[in-house]
């Protein structure tokens, strides 16, 4: 198994006819993902990606006609919270929101409603997820991956590619790589992804890639100390040199009132048995040091 996304996942891309949606929809299809539908209001009945994918006016139509169970959202920030709500209301189980720049307060009721609907939201402002060799949803370049048994979870985009490429180059493959997003209010946390990895029989080691801001890394570390005791664990935390009180690009990457520092996160992760890298390129060796033999 893998988590969140697999060969059987049936993906509807919101905004498939747009610039981002068509570019990444094509890449997902090329990777082998079952992109079964597009959703653009007013373009129902058309097709996208050279006629290979039908487009619907509403998500509920896409679900009824294609059996879609996974959403990938590329719509602009002003409409993205509504897109998430539409997906949840249509019975989509796993919703990836790639969109960046959504007002944080908009996500508070959305996260609540998605949870109440029994669905799972990844993001927003996330790169998506890849289960190498099976399927990918979002914008992570397929070329960085290799099939394997290490679960990767990260708050970043390109930093994740960097870390995963280093693992792939060293011959260490991944079960699933998940980008949970750099915003203050996100649907799925580090902790929840670690819980999914813990329950996945094909994931034998985990890599956590954190950054300054908030306390999600510390919370996840505390859980891992107890529940992933015998699992090889490695981590990297970005922002050791970030000054206090400045948002470092991601809306959520800010040290405020002395809280959310890299030092605090590194200490919590080390105390929980993670080997913490000084550079993402060290992650493969640290996994080996931690006993990973995959």
């Amino acid at each position, binding site marked *: 198994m893998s988590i969140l996304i697999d060969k059987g996942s049936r993906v509807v891309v919101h905004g498939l006819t747009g610039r981002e949606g068509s570019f990444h929809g094509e890449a997902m299809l090329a990777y082998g993902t079952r992109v079964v539908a597009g959703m653009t209001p007013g373009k129902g009945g058309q097709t996208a990606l050279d006629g290979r994918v039908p487009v619907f006016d509403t998500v509920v139509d896409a679900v009824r006609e294609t059996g879609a169970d996974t959403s990938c959202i590329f719509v602009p920030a*002003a409409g993205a919270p509504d897109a998430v709500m539409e997906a949840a209301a249509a019975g989509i189980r796993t919703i990836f929101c790639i969109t960046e720049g959504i007002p944080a307060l908009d996500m508070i009721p959305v996260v609540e409603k998605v949870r109440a609907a029994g669905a799972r939201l990844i993001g927003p402002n996330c790169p998506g997820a890849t289960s190498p060799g099976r399927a990918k949803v979002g914008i992570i*370049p397929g070329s960085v991956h290799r099939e394997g048994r290490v679960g990767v979870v990260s708050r970043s985009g390109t930093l994740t590619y*960097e870390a995963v490429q280093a693992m792939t180059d060293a011959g260490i493959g991944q079960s699933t790589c998940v980008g949970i997003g750099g915003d203050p*209010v996100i649907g799925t946390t580090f902790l929840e992804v670690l819980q999914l990895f813990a329950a996945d029989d094909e994931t034998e080691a985990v890599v956590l890639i954190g950054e300054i801001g908030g306390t999600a890394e510390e919370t996840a570390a505390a859980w891992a100390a107890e529940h992933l005791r015998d699992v090889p664990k490695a981590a990297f935390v970005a*922002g050791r040199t970030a000054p206090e009180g400045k948002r470092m690009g991601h809306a959520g990457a800010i040290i405020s*009132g002395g809280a959310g520092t*890299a030092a605090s996160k590194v200490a919590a992760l080390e105390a929980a048995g993670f080997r913490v890298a000084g550079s993402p390129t060290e992650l493969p060796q640290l996994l080996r040091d931690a006993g990973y033999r995959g």
Partner: protein
Amino acid sequence: MKIQEADAKSLLVAQGLPVPPWEVAHTAAEAHVAAERFFVGGADQVVIKAQVLVGGRGKAGGVRLAATADDAERVADAILGLEIKGIPVRKVLVGPAADIVKEYYLSAVLDRASRRIILMGSAEGGVEIEQVAVDRPDAIVTTQADPLLGLLPFQARQMAFRLGLGAHLKDAVAIATGLVRTMQAYDADLVEINPLAIVNETGADGQVSSRLQCLDAKITLDDSALYRHPSLEALRDPDEEDPADRVAREAGLTFIKLDGTIGCMVNGAGLAMTTMDLVKRAGGEPANFLDIGGGARAEKVAAAMRLILADPKVNAILVNIFGGITRGDEVARGLIAAREQQERDVPMVVRIVGTNAEEAAVLLREARFETAATLDEAAERAVAASRSAVA
């Protein structure tokens, strides 16, 4: 986006919260006129407060009282000559000094861990709440607003009673619900009143009564939501925005100036922080955080390069691009174009991997750029270049 105290108070007033009157003065003479008006209105003293977007104004001498209009002018003159944490004071707030009975702390803040708005209060107001949180965490009371309905009146009442504000229940509930309403109305990350105070007021008949007032206000706005509050954009203080920040914002770049010598240009926020960290690890000091974003084109790269070179301390540049949406050859073209225009020659180490990296490598080789294969190697070479520039 941070806004000045006076602007934050205007937003609170617009939401019906009790704030004592104030005027903003840009000169000592203006402060004199404002103070005179408050004295004529019956004030015993006036308070003069530096308007800067950094904390610690009081400790820096930026908040003082005055007993006469002449005194107010002298005090304002002194405060307008201050620099607080490197920011010159360009304006002051003048208002009647309150007769404070007791100070409290009350704020509405976006809490990431619970993914809700929380209301945070303390009966120990007027001091730094971060310090209270460390010294006496029990002195802080919090409650989570409902994710769908906001802060409910019963939650506000609970907060009021727990802070010992039972005698001012109606005011306290109105202020607490008003803070959360203010947060939602303007898409703020934080609405903080410190201090919220019980103040004595003497009526025309000489009778003294007490009431709750918001004596200070701090609001930070969510940058991502400014598009739907065009009037709030006017509250951005041009006096306190670094010119480089403005250029970056207008070019769609995320730029934060730091103190070091090695300019960094990276795509992606997490990778940009990591690049800074690796520069430091290799023994250098990063001059900036700069994220050119996804899919950056050649013109954007050139704008980023100008921004980096505008910092005279920069003596080496590290470019680190992991192409995904961003195409490596576009970045390479931007670098080549930027170098042709640039006025000073600074050694540059370029590392481009991912989408179209091979095309980028050809372009960079033809243009004789120094390239590196890995991030660690790139950081080490940039640090070495910076060192030899000093030597």
